[in-house]
């Protein structure tokens, strides 16, 4: 029982991270029918920019190790804001370099261009930060909360709380605000949206900024768990992509649910045989795709000929 509770606690934080990134896939897919295949690389500046800013603020070189005392909650909050802004801006560059030339055109050029953009980003980070990883202390310390024998770290709770808050916030923005309505209008029918006076390109750029910013946020949130390095993003983003597919790429709530589902399945399968985790997850994806091609919560799209 304790073991299952422990697995759930451990799966929660990673699931939240998958959900955040999956939501980023949803937002751009809904508006442009494209998404960033290089999203994993966007976690890299997310974590490293934030950590380096904290390092520089305490007078250390941009690459090094932080002592727990130097990682105050204030420093971490500011680092998070900076990471989100920087990676959001990179999202604009992504749109102009890798999406705009190909959007609406037939073929899969945007797949390769987004992968390429991610590789450029990752290698730029490699040139700046080098290949070694930076251990990042959590601003909430290294203690452990105990619930019925299972341990969970304050930072894992923070990850889940921030992720859920951001998801709920975005959900409200998408459903209630003018911006959200514009986003949904573009997603529904770009031509019609343009006729009623919505600046479609502006909306699409905003979608990519939000999507990238979510990856940046995921990067800085996860850094105290995984350490910050140039190599953190790929595995996480692949799981997040799977979460989006399982939950339904067209449904933001489905993407979030998919993230948590994957995180928890991963932890529970690990209880049985750790080496079967990936097998279980990708089997699940195949089964879901066979039974519900649009994902668990996705809406069926009818292709009109």
């Amino acid at each position: 029982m304790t073991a299952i509770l422990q697995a759930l606690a451990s799966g929660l934080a990673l699931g939240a991270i998958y959900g955040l990134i999956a939501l980023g896939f949803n937002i751009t897919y809904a508006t442009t029918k494209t998404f960033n295949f290089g999203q994993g690389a966007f976690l890299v500046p997310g974590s490293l920019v934030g950590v380096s800013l904290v390092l520089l603020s305490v007078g250390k070189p941009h690459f090094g190790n932080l002592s727990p005392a130097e990682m105050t909650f204030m420093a971490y909050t500011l680092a998070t804001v900076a990471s989100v802004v920087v990676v959001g801006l990179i999202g604009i560059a992504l749109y102009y370099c890798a999406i705009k030339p190909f959007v609406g055109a037939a073929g899969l050029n945007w797949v390769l261009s987004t992968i390429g953009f991610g590789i450029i980003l990752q290698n730029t980070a490699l040139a700046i930060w080098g290949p070694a990883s930076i251990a990042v202390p959590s601003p909430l310390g290294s203690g452990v909360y105990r619930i019925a024998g299972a341990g969970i770290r304050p930072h894992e709770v923070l990850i889940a709380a921030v992720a859920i808050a951001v998801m709920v916030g975005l959900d409200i923005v998408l459903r209630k605000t003018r911006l959200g309505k514009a986003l949904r209008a573009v997603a529904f029918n770009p031509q019609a949206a343009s006729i009623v006076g919505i600046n479609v390109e502006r909306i699409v750029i905003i979608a990519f900024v939000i999507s990238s910013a979510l990856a940046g946020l995921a990067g800085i949130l996860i850094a105290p768990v995984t350490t910050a390095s140039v190599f953190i993003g790929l595995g996480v983003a692949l799981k997040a992509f799977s979460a989006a597919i399982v939950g339904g790429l067209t449904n933001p709530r489905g993407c979030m649910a998919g993230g948590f589902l994957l995180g928890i399945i991963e932890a529970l399968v690990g209880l049985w045989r750790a080496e079967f985790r990936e097998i279980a997850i990708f089997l699940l994806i195949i089964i879901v795709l066979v039974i519900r091609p649009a994902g668990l919560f996705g809406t069926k799209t009818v292709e009109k000929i």
Partner: protein
Amino acid sequence: MNTISRRTFAALMASAAVFAGPALAQQGDIKIGYNADQSASGAAELGLSGRYGFEAAIEDINAKGGVLGRKLVAVIRDDAAAPPKSIQNMNELIDNEKVAAVVGPTNSGNALAWLHIPQQKKVPVISHVATATDMTARYAKESQNYIFRVSMVDREQLALLSAYAVKASKDKKIAIIADTTGYGQSATKDLLEILALHGVTPVGVEKFGPKDTDMTSQLAKLKAAGADMVISGSLADATAQVLKSMEKMDYYPGLLSTWGSINSPLINIAGPKLAEKTIFAASTTADANPKATALSKRLLAKYPNMPAFVSAAQGYDAVMLIAAAITKAGSTDGEKVAAALEDLGAVDGIIKTYNKPYSKANHEALGVADFHLAQWKDGVVVKLDNAVVKSITAADLKR
């Protein structure tokens, strides 16, 4: 240490960051190559500290007039843990720099990628960090094997850990946890064989992915099986995550690990207090003998952030052995130097005085009898000397 080959494109970057030798070589100087990861993998710190020891030994030899009346010159290369870069460095050191011998590498995988080069070109190599058991064995049957080592050998350090685990466990409930890399899995295989020699079947054998950060589910199974000694077959970063998961579960069996735990990722990821909870194998520590203390002080004065003294001592001793062999051979000819290495008398090193360290059949200067157990205490590595360690006899060191 095993290679971390997932860092393939680290090679691209590394090619732009070739280190220049500290001193320009003059005609007649003897060049010694150094090819080791000093920047990329979880074991990079061993390569970096190894370089400090390597350079210190060359300084000391030159202060006493060099070898054969000629100055020794270090030619330093960083392979960033990437096998292609390591191969390129090796060719360059041998063909362009014409080094008399090479010390390195950090990662066993890199060594396995280029062992054939020095072997074919007849340049002696002393591995001062890489630990893969079969490295020195590959060319053992050739008329001359050019691969030597003065480092920990995986099988030998696992023998020490197993002996400790068997003594320390109350009901012989020993478990193994290792990552799925080549390093982790070959450690698991060695451990299973060694424990079998002790007549012990582990109560659990668990694995985890190389980038996993949560091993609570694996540890839950070991806890349920009643394991009170767990042997970790991973590098520092993974062992640190194992410790963090143990902390989450409030389950603290004795955790034994290989010398990778000497690297600072253990401290940085697990935190200094938690890091003290693993006992690991080491060939020497700064407090092991007066010469070690003196070298450690001298290097720390120059490099206050020197991470791992143990590989500095091994790097130092590697140069001493090469210098003694060149002196004995009266030449820098690789064939003669390799033969001289196999026929050395007593050579003073930091770890010990090597008495006939190598022979035709034995290319390991250090064995399980030279190793001891160590632990982090208040941010420094200290020798472990408890009742269990004292009770280990030579007969317990089954391998």
